[in-house]
């Protein structure tokens, strides 16, 4: 048996199963660990019939265990439900109520997968962890830094959600799928005889079925015995004219068009939300454009924190095509001003702003 084991985070899906299989084939001493993060039987009123594509359903644990048995590797389930609720679910709910649009996957990466899980792996004797993320990590001896790069399969790239990883986390993590096309991963799954080879990819946020965030938040409050807050408010124009009412700021995100339920001569979009006044400002599409933004809580990955302006391509949401911009350091150490070359549509508070130089991930922060 090789000296130190390597822990693979197994979700029961194809990607992490292939990671376990390929590392084992490479002669690594692989152990499989599944994180139990959320009890899918909670909030039954928002459950849908389809249980696939969500993490932590019993089916997923059975799948992960079946893969581990197929490979003949030690396998354990570790329970991080409490940490997940404290560090991911509650901040997610709070952010929505504060009128922002959060990314729970990034919080989960920062505080659960590459923190709690990494600690657990180390605790049981593993040197490193491997996950099924599509991203690349490499050591740059010249800069003395761990760098992150977009995955070879650009359609699967997950670096947008990984901007919070620190150097010591990258040093202990492996993303073996970063250099592979998804089709090759599926092919390898079949070659390895992995029982979940044909399982569909997961979608959406794992603990929110059907992507109904507002419904989740309402159900979570009912479960917690928190009285429905006074969240209803007014829809107003930029000029302050009241043109309608709404059921709570957490139903809206910047750039949203659906669900406004106001009649107007031209399409209206959410321009901004304000939790204090409970006002949702709506306007025309062009009012969504802005040529600058601020990011706070910035984490630098492939380069050290710059002291001079830096040119970069900045991605402001997962499906956004990164836009050329200049990053300006501010008087606050982890805060950056972003000046886009061309105004961008719907720069949304709470989302990440991730800085790229071609395929290299320079770093990223949270849009204010």
């Amino acid at each position, binding site marked *: 048996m090789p000296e130190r084991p390597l822990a693979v985070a197994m979700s029961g899906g194809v990607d992490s199963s292939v990671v376990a299989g390929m590392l084992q084939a490479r002669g690594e001493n692989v152990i499989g*660990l599944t994180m*139990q993060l959320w009890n899918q039987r909670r909030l039954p009123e928002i459950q849908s019939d389809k249980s696939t594509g969500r993490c932590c359903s*019993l089916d997923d644990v059975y799948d992960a265990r079946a893969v581990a048995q197929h490979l003949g590797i*030690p396998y354990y*389930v570790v*329970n991080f439900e409490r940490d997940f609720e404290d560090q991911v679910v509650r901040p997610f709910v709070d952010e929505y109520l504060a009128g922002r649009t959060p990314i729970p996957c990034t919080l989960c990466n920062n505080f659960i997968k590459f923190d709690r899980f990494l600690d*657990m792996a180390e*605790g049981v004797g593993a040197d490193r962890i491997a996950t099924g993320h599509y991203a690349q990590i490499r050591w740059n001896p010249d800069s003395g830094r761990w760098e992150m790069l977009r995955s070879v399969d650009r359609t699967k790239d997950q670096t947008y959600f990984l901007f919070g990883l620190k150097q010591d986390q990258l040093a202990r993590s492996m993303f073996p799928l970063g250099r592979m096309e998804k089709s090759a991963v599926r092919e390898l799954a079949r070659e390895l005889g992995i029982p979940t080879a044909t399982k569909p990819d997961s979608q959406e946020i794992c603990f929110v079925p059907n992507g109904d965030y507002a419904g989740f938040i309402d159900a979570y409050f009912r479960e917690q015995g928190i009285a429905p807050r006074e969240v209803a408010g007014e829809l107003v124009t930029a000029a302050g004219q009241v043109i309608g009412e709404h059921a709570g700021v957490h139903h809206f995100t910047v750039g949203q068009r659906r669900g406004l339920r106001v009649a107007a001569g031209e399409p209206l979009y959410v321009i901004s939300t304000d939790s204090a006044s409970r006002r949702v400002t709506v306007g025309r599409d062009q009012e969504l454009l802005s040529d600058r933004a601020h990011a706070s809580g910035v984490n630098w990955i492939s380069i050290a924190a710059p002291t001079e302006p830096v040119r970069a391509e900045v991605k402001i949401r997962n499906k956004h095509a990164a836009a050329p911009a200049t990053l300006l350091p501010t008087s606050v150490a982890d805060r950056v001003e972003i000046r886009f070359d061309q105004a961008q549509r719907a720069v949304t508070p709470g989302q990440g702003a991730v800085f790229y130089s071609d395929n290299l991930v320079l770093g990223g922060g949270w849009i204010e």
Partner: protein
Amino acid sequence: MLPVMTEVYGNASSIHYFGQTARKMLDASRMQVAALLRADSQEIVFTSGGTEADNLAIFGLTGGTGGHVITTTFEHPAVLAAAGQLDHTLVPVDGRGIVDPDRIQSALRPETKVISVMHANNEVGTIQPIAEIARIAAEAGVALHSDGVQAAGKIPVSVADLGVELYSISGHKIGAPKGIGVLYVRKGTALQPRTFGGRHERERRAGTENVAGAVALGRAAQWIAENGDAENRRQGVLRDRLEQSILDRIPDTRVNGAGAARVPNTTNIRFDGIDSDALLIALDLKGFAVSSGAACSSGAPEPSHVLLAMGLNRLEARSSIRFSLGRSNTVEQVDALVDALVDSVTHLRKLAPSYA
């Protein structure tokens, strides 16, 4: 077991020769199990295991009419979840893991139908004052059930001395396979069946008997009758050695349930500053199978409800490990386990920010 599954293939309820052979073996086993509990063989009802025995006891006495159940906060889920279906009172246990009979007394209500208190706790091994509780139950005219799954075979059991109406045991805890158990039902106890069908087990449990399992359970009972005392003494010495070595060699450790009478094969130890999940996995990777709280449906451990009931906080409960010894364990294994524990606990504490 093997001949029963191959040559003696008869149904014990059949009248023909093959059935009679099976019946003979079943009844011989029934006598062996009865001897283990100092009971009469007619009082032995074979079940599919401890959970079914516990459920049969509780629902068999409350029947369709409902009624109130008294049990304790640190019972096995087979009792807790069954009582949870009915009007029930949970009596707390003290920090040593012992239930106070007076608390049972004060929980009594006119509509109380059954009191259920485990004989020995499954996680900490503490032995409960069943005979005292039996006197309270008898005075109140309420039936007493005891889950003896962790006690039978490990300490001498006499259902008459204990004064219980009902007593559960499980095959795989005493050397028989999984899938067989027993409910002792004292003669004259008005127990209603909970499965309906044929007139098996004196109309207390419908369903074709698991002859192979029952025969194995009888054999296990017989083995205990012949070797139990010596074996339990041997395991007790091993357990004490394990416990003392851990306390001596690893600082900031304590025994949960210390100070109470315990079954000889179990110890539950708290290692301050460590996460029991990580320790459990680290030990398993080194070839030592231990456990922490009860496993939930996904297999992810939850903090033990037993330790929480004994007054430990969540962090303390999550840093506790249960060690159970068996017939195959040796002194060498115990010493190797302690060495592995020293390494793993030292490693985990180095990583724990909270442990200074």
